[in-house]
Each structure stands twice: as C-alpha cells, then as structure tokens.
C-alpha cells in the first residue's frame, strides 16, 4: 500500500479534488481507503466524501499533525488490517503541516505502507492574506509537498495567479506545480493520472 497525503489551507479544495480522484481510482480498478481529519469537533468533509460512496474514516476535534497524531496511527493500522487497499488517502486538516503528519506515521513506514506522496493545494485568491496571517503554516504546507496544485483558476485574478506562481517558485523551486479548476475537468487529467499511477505502483 502507498500513502497519498493531501494538504493545503482551509477551503483550498482538498475534498473536492479527492472526490474526483476517487472516481479515477475506481475507473482504474484500484482500491483505496480515506482518512479525513477536521480540526473542529463536528466532521463535515467525511460525510461529503461518504455521500460519494467512499469508505471514509473521520478523525475530528484536533489536528493529526500534532494534537491527535496517535489517532491517525491507530486508524491507519485498522485500515491496513481490515482492507489491505492499494492506496491510503489522507486529507489533512487545513491547518496541518504535512511534515507533522508524515512524522506521526514514519515509524510504521515499510510495515503499514511503502511509498508516500504529499500533494499540497494552494488557493491563489487568498494566498496573499494567508501569508500575512499564517506565514509559518503556509511555508510548511508548500515546502512539505512533493507536488503543488494551484486551485480555483476560475476565481483568481491574473495578478493573483502570477503572485501565487511566484510565491511557490520562491518557496519550493524544485517542486512540480499543477494548475486546476473545477469548471474545466480536462485541467485535472494529468494530475489525476500521476496520482493514480502512484496508487497502482504499490
């Protein structure tokens, strides 16, 4: 089993992308289980994904990169024991640092899962404000990614898009950057293809 971690700030589009990605996995005959973490006490995203027919484990009331990391490990162990999926997909909370999530699981790498991939989503319409309000978090989410995805192209102004590209280039110059928008499904195909191939490689 491989591990795919989706990170990115609150409302950056993680749940929406995962719903679409899940359909791609199904089309390719791959099995996946999903862990969704929300920092609030009441889970929303888990039910949204569950409505799409996905097998979702929900961890709420804390952040799996620090506060309740032990819950993540326990849940991952249960999933592997019960289902042996091709891919374990984790949707981190919007305030999680991906490095913290991976660190929580690191001692089980090689046993629970083999390879890992971190995809961080970036909302260009709010990036400037986010850098002002939560710079360390933003840097952690960008620098901790293996692949970056700029979302909401349809909502961003040209200046916002340019600024987002420049910011990501500054923070993570070696990291691949994709650009997607939900109103143009074709914009998702290359990214989803790479992620599905990662799942198939387990």
């Amino acid at each position, binding site marked *: 089993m491989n591990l795919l971690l989706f990170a990115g700030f609150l409302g950056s589009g993680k749940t929406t992308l995962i719903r679409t990605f899940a359909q791609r996995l199904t089309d390719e005959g791959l099995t996946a289980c999903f862990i969704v973490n929300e920092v609030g006490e009441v889970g*929303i995203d888990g039910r949204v994904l569950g409505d799409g027919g996905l097998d979702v484990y929900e961890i709420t009331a804390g952040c799996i990169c620090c506060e309740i990391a032990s819950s993540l490990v326990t849940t991952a162990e249960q999933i592997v024991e019960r289902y042996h999926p091709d891919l374990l997909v984790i949707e981190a909370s919007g305030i999680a640092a991906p490095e*913290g999530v991976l660190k929580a699981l690191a001692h089980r790498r090689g046993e629970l899962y083999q390879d890992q991939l971190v995809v961080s989503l970036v909302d260009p319409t709010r990036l400037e404000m986010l850098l002002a309000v939560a710079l360390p978090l933003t840097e952690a989410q960008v620098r901790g990614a293996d692949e970056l995805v700029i979302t909401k192209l349809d909502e961003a102004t040209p200046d916002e898009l340019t600024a987002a590209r420049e910011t990501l280039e500054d923070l993570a110059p070696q990291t691949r950057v994709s650009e997607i928008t939900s109103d143009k499904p074709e914009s998702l195909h290359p990214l989803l293809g790479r992620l599905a191939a990662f799942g198939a490689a387990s």
Partner: protein
Amino acid sequence: MTGRELIAPYSVRLRLVPPQGAFAEPQEDVCGLLEELGRRTEAAGASLIGHLKCYVESPGGESFHGSLTSLRAGARCRGERAQGAASLTVDLTALVYGLSGDEVEAVTLATLRQMQEQGRFEWELNHASTLEPEAACEPPAGHDHDHGQEGHHHHAHEHGQEHGHEHGHDHGHDHGGGHAGHHGEA
C-alpha cells in the same frame, strides 16, 4: 508553529424551521446564512475567514453541503436540493482567524437572530462546542505526540439547547483528545 494556535474551531448543530410550511429553496437559505455569518465575522474583526462550512440534512434524508471561504467568492451549496423540506438539520463549523471561540459564537447567534427577524427561518441550537486554540501545536521537527504535556489546553465548551435566543447556556468542559468515526460500507 502551524496554525492551530491561531484558531478556535466552533461547531454547532442547528435545526432550522421555515416560517411557512416548507423551505422552497433550502440551499439558498443556507448560502444566505453562510454569507451573513461571513460578513459578520469580518465586521467583528476576523483577520481571515478560514472556512465556514456545513452539512445539511432534511427529514426526508436528502442532504447537501455548503461552503464559504471568502465573501468575494460567496457561498456555494452542492448536493440534493431538498426542496420542500419541513426543517433542516445543519451541522456548521466556523474556522476563523482573529476571533476567539466566544466571539465566533456571539457572531453566529447574532446572525441567526437577524435571519429569524427577517423571516428567513426560525432556529434551535441543539449543541455547540468550541475547541480552544492549541498551544501545544509546535513545529513538526520538534514535537512529540504525547498528550498532557505542559501548555496543552485542549478542551471544548459545550452548550445545551437554545430556541431562537441566547439565554439558557449550559457551559461545560470536555477535555477531549479527538474523535474517530467511519462512513462507508466496507
């Protein structure tokens, strides 16, 4: 430092009842709720709306979800339309930078009262909780995962049932450590 020390997640379960018989367009009313809540959080001094989101169910089992990340983009609802619902159960989470949990709660209640006064719906608040900012969320390179360490102040304020107004709070404290659940068939 990540972001947990800057945010006090506020969650609430509401029951909304239309002024007459049934909701004609429930998604419009829920989007209106999210947008008014967003306006009021900014007016109250929020430095950033992280995410206002909700999951909504009708008595007939229809469901949809709503989301607002900025006033510029506005709120969006997706899922079943639930037209004609006689009531709606709304699980709402507000993740807002720059306001305390108590401030977010006050804004939420003020929003609900205003919408009731406008004749949009009547409301009952069945459960609410605020998780305090988590001082122990430290840099990934240096933290450990043990709970109960010094500076760890994870607790929830819970409130009992309210009907369209504020009095009758039942403040409690829940020293929780996360909840796990499972949606799916497998």
